[in-house]
């Protein structure tokens, strides 16, 4: 596997261009290329879980000089999320995207986005990270505006401007880091910063990074683009953006930089936890008031990412019991995985409902459980998951985060997290009663179940929701722990410089 590591970005990049060329011959071929590529990537990603950590020096340059690719528990976990959800989104797209024209272009952008995200996750070089981040971002800007309607264009432009500011902030941060350390290699940076310590310049860099990556992760107050952008994209892209992109570009980078490069710090921890709590509360309150199915889901993404952020922030605190900090981080990572599963399921469900009924307004729908039983059941399961109802997966991760918060003595954040879980439940009760139950409107009496290519990913994701929830005891000691340990062990990360 080690020698094939760069293929995670190379394959989708190549496929993106090849796809456009080949589709000149036949439109149909792009479906197969996309499916094949994401399928291969998903299989590779799952195999990566069984690899021990290693580094890959691009072009055989000695580490501090050349670009480094790092594989550890965290990057393996992220790769699995990105590529598996990507595969399911592609399966869903095959049928769903027939309503749009220019399917090959869509798949090419999709592949670019995958390439960018994979690149962000595997790279061990600061500037390389920036480049991949921009590739993924630009592809996502274009995908948000793919429908080229009024709403799509407006959302895409807002996303682009805010995203552009964030990218600039990130690049500034990288430039500052380079100016004080003279290196871009992440393990090397970590080592250099160890000797420099937390100076004001580093503080400024951290501020820039929190703003830049926080905007990509849609932490309040940098969240405003998300509720516009995510609902405007085609449903599989919404699933990718909410389920994967904000994690790979936002939370992953924050975790990697704050844990492995800057190191645990009490102030940074307090700031990140505050942002997380703010996101949780503001996001969920706004979500309750929405009548648009997808816009509501988008606000919930902000709120659920707040849970992840608060867990990560707790893990960053060096002053509390390390076991509790590790528990918080574990909860955050677990919620990250769970959120990827249920949120992409929910967005795909919204797509399936929209595909058949032609609307996203909750109050226009109703009684669809009789007409679309599979979609409704999966939507119910994912709704219960996100609301933190046992025995589904969301329950465990929320429980662990709340437990860690109370155990660490955060007597305000803990109850807030419980309350937010409850408000999430309210809003998903309203979703279910509005869309699936109640009276079926006359105009939908002829509605049929969504086609198999669309229900298959839904079923798989719903099974994952239930499966992770029930099999939680076995996951505890599996991949999540590897990811957590990768983050907490800054020493090991610095040692990648000398060849792992």
């Amino acid at each position: 596997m080690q020698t094939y590591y760069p293929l995670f970005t190379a394959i989708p990049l190549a496929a993106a261009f090849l796809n456009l060329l080949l589709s000149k011959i036949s439109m149909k071929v792009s479906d197969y290329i996309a499916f094949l590529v994401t399928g291969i990537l998903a299989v590779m990603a799952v195999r990566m879980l069984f690899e021990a950590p290693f580094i890959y020096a691009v072009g055989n340059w000695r580490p501090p000089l050349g670009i480094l690719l790092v594989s550890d528990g965290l990057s393996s976990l992220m790769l699995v999320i990105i590529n598996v959800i990507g595969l399911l989104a592609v399966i869903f797209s095959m049928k769903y995207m027939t309503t749009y024209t220019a399917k090959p272009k869509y798949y090419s952008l999709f592949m670019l986005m995958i390439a960018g995200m994979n690149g962000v996750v595997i790279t061990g070089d600061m500037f390389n990270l920036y480049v991949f981040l921009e590739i993924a971002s630009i592809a996502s800007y274009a995908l948000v505006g793919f429908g080229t309607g009024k709403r799509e264009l407006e959302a895409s432009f807002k996303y682009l401007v805010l995203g552009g500011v964030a990218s600039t902030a990130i690049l500034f941060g990288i430039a500052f880091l380079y100016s004080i350390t003279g290196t871009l290699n992440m393990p090397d940076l970590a080592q250099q910063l160890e000797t420099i310590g937390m100076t004001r310049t580093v503080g400024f860099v951290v501020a820039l990074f929190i703003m830049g990556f926080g905007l990509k992760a849609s932490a309040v107050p940098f969240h405003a683009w998300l509720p516009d952008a995510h609902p405007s994209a085609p449903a599989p892209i919404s699933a990718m953006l909410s389920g994967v992109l904000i994690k790979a570009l936002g939370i992953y980078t924050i975790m990697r930089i704050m844990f492995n490069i800057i190191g645990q710090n009490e102030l940074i921890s307090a700031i990140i936890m505050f942002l997380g709590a703010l996101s949780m509360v503001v996001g969920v309150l706004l979500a309750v008031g929405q009548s648009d199915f997808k816009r509501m889901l988008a606000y919930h993404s902000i709120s659920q990412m707040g849970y992840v952020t608060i867990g990560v922030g707790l893990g960053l605190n060096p002053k509390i019991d390390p076991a509790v900090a590790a528990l918080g981080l574990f909860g955050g990572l677990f919620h990250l995985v769970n959120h990827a599963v249920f949120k992409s399921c929910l967005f795909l469900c919204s797509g399936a409902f929209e595909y058949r009924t032609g609307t996203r307004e909750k109050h226009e729908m109703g009684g669809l459980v009789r007409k679309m039983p599979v979609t409704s059941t999966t939507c119910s399961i994912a709704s219960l998951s996100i609301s933190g109802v046992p025995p589904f997966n969301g329950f465990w991760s929320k429980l662990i985060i709340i437990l860690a918060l109370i155990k660490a003595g955060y007597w305000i954040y803990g109850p807030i997290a419980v309350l937010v879980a409850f408000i999430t439940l309210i809003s998903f009760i309203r979703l279910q009663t509005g869309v699936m139950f109640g009276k079926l409107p006359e105009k939908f009496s002829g509605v049929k179940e969504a086609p198999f290519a669309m229900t298959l990913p839904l079923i798989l994701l719903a099974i994952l929701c239930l499966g992770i929830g029930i099999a939680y005891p076995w996951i505890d000691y599996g991949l999540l722990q590897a990811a957590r340990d990768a983050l907490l062990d800054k020493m090991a990360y610095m040692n990648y410089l000398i060849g792992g």
Partner: protein
Amino acid sequence: MILYFLSMVLLVMGLYCLVAKKNIVKKIIGIVIIEYSVNLFLVLVGYRSGGIAPILVKGMQAEELVQKGVDPLPQALVLTSIVIGLGTMALMVALCLRMYEKFKTFDMSKINTLKG
């Protein structure tokens, strides 16, 4: 030092342009300005007063290059960053044209169908 300061001034100007100007085209220009401010900053990071191009020509000692040459890495970064900026700008301009077709206005403060 003054140059560093000027790149910051450029950044603030760009941000001001983004926030205060309503016209979409001006907003695009604002984005471009902040991108250039960060490019300028990157070049300045690698700059060395009286430095030479970081190319090892015939007859030059390696030590001499290390002492006098400017840092080549930021230059490479700036090149990449300019290319990325170009991509972003192209997308922005395309979106801007499409938006004009749909909304018949360049005033971004009037384009707020998505809210709440």
